[in-house]
């Protein structure tokens, strides 16, 4: 606590006693909550397993080395699927996100009720994880790439629409006003005044989300929605640890490559 004192003159304190008291009180509550939360977790933990964990980790680690490189020949297809799930999912999301974003932005929404609906779509899409979407879609479409793609699409709609509508709200309004003054219709104002301003944002969002979706689509296989996650859960269930490490290696390189690609593309756009 920063405190400066002069020998016998006035004493400067950063906060008054009352403020100080309130701060201590808030800290106390926070610590109490954390302690209670910790108790909630530790009650349900079997500490024997936790103590055993380092040994387990060493054991599994040893079994994972060396990765089974020959397994790669069977991984090309799932990697290709993973890529497609991410890309097509992003495309689907962008197609849906555009109208939703225009409905959600204050300056383009046709009606407050429409805006509320659009916001609700955005929030529900964002709060349900893609794995849960996949879990539900596998019930409808059956296991496979299709369910995964749609899951990624639905999950990304909220993210893309949110960023896009924030972009739409930040545009320079006078440019639109100038188009309006020429006698252009609403649709033309959107086309000439708004679209050119948000196009770079739009492209940036697409690439950004694609990068995230590559990561997300690597796990969808855990619930049967296609991609490399399917191989991962199969290998873990059969305790084929050398295959697991190979898959992790592949995921790692996919993620690095996608991050590199998205950084390049974003650099080119902006």
């Amino acid at each position: 606590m920063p405190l400066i004192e002069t020998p016998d003159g006035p004493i400067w304190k950063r906060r008054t006693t009352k403020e100080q008291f309130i701060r201590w009180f808030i800290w106390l509550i926070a610590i109490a909550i954390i302690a209670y939360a910790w108790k909630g977790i530790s009650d349900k933990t079997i500490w024997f397993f936790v103590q055993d964990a380092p040994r387990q980790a060493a054991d599994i680690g040893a079994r994972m080395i060396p990765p089974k490189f020959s397994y790669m020949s069977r991984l090309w297809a799932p990697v290709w699927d993973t890529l497609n799930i991410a890309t097509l999912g992003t495309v689907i999301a962008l197609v849906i996100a555009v109208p939703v974003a225009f409905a959600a932005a204050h300056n383009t929404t046709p009606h407050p009720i429409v805006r509320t609906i659009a916001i609700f779509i955005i929030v529900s899409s964002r709060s349900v994880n893609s794995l849960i979407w996949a879990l539900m879609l596998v019930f409808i479409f059956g296991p496979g790439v299709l369910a995964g793609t749609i899951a990624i699409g639905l999950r990304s709609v909220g993210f893309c629409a949110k960023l896009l509508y924030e972009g739409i709200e930040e545009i320079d309004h006078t440019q639109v006003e100038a188009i309006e003054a020429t006698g252009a219709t609403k649709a033309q104002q959107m086309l000439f005044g708004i679209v050119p301003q948000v196009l770079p944002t739009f492209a940036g969002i697409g690439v950004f989300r694609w990068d995230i979706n590559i990561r997300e689509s690597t796990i969808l296989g855990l619930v049967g929605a296609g991609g490399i996650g399917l191989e991962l859960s199969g290998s873990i269930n059969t305790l084929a640890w050398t295959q697991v490490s190979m898959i992790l290696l592949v995921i790692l390189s996919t993620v690095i490559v996608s991050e590199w690609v998205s950084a390049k593309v974003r650099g080119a756009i902006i």
Partner: protein
Amino acid sequence: MSVAEPDFPSSWKKPPFIKSPLLRWSIIIGSAIYLALAFGTMDVDWERAAEGLPRGKRFLAAFFPPNFSDNLGVMWDGIFESIWMAIISTVAGIALSIPIGLGAARNLAPKWVYLVCRSIIGGSRTFPEIILAIFAVKLFGFGPFAGFVALSIGTIGFYAKLLAEDIENINPTQAEAIKATGSSWPQWINYAIQPQVMPRMIGLSVYRLDINFRESAVVGIVGGGGIGATLNTAFERYEFDTAAAILLIIIGIVMALEYTSGYLRKWVQ
């Protein structure tokens, strides 16, 4: 006006975005081929899809009305477990992130510390929380402890990276001014760095709490405890009305958190 006015062209084409025609066309054709191939791999089973429609309808019908009452006790258990997990993993993750983030800021740390911290961040960012959770479950057994570990590691990758970037972007003159007073290193961090990065970091920790809660809903699917486990059980038992109730609760809590975090961020800044 003169009669011999020059003749102006009567057509105009927008100059293309990509200047070189070869590059332009190869990008267009390349993406068309890729999209065709990608759609090819979708192997849409049309029979199944046709079945899927009524199935989807039945599926959705089974969701309504959401059933909050039958499994109330289990649901509350799951929700609280998720909340505890989100809180603890956020606190632990941030506590670990602060030294790592300081170490990963190029303007603070010596080269070797910087490299070590950056690789820790890189490592924890690569794998989605779910994969971390799978391994945590293998190591620590089923239950919320595994979820807690997975989410804490995920938090480090997120929080330490942003903290490091924020520190790298601070106003250097303020930092110099404090250094010029002859302060020690911890004093310098406390007076020059902390006030500059603090508001944003508080906002980000609320945001991360929000993310951790959402993620806690899925680590349960692989055995990491929390509301996700409850949700998974509901799906496995085909209790879709309970699943619907759980999803609604998740959406509700996430909305509340988003609202609070927005409010808190405004209040802090």
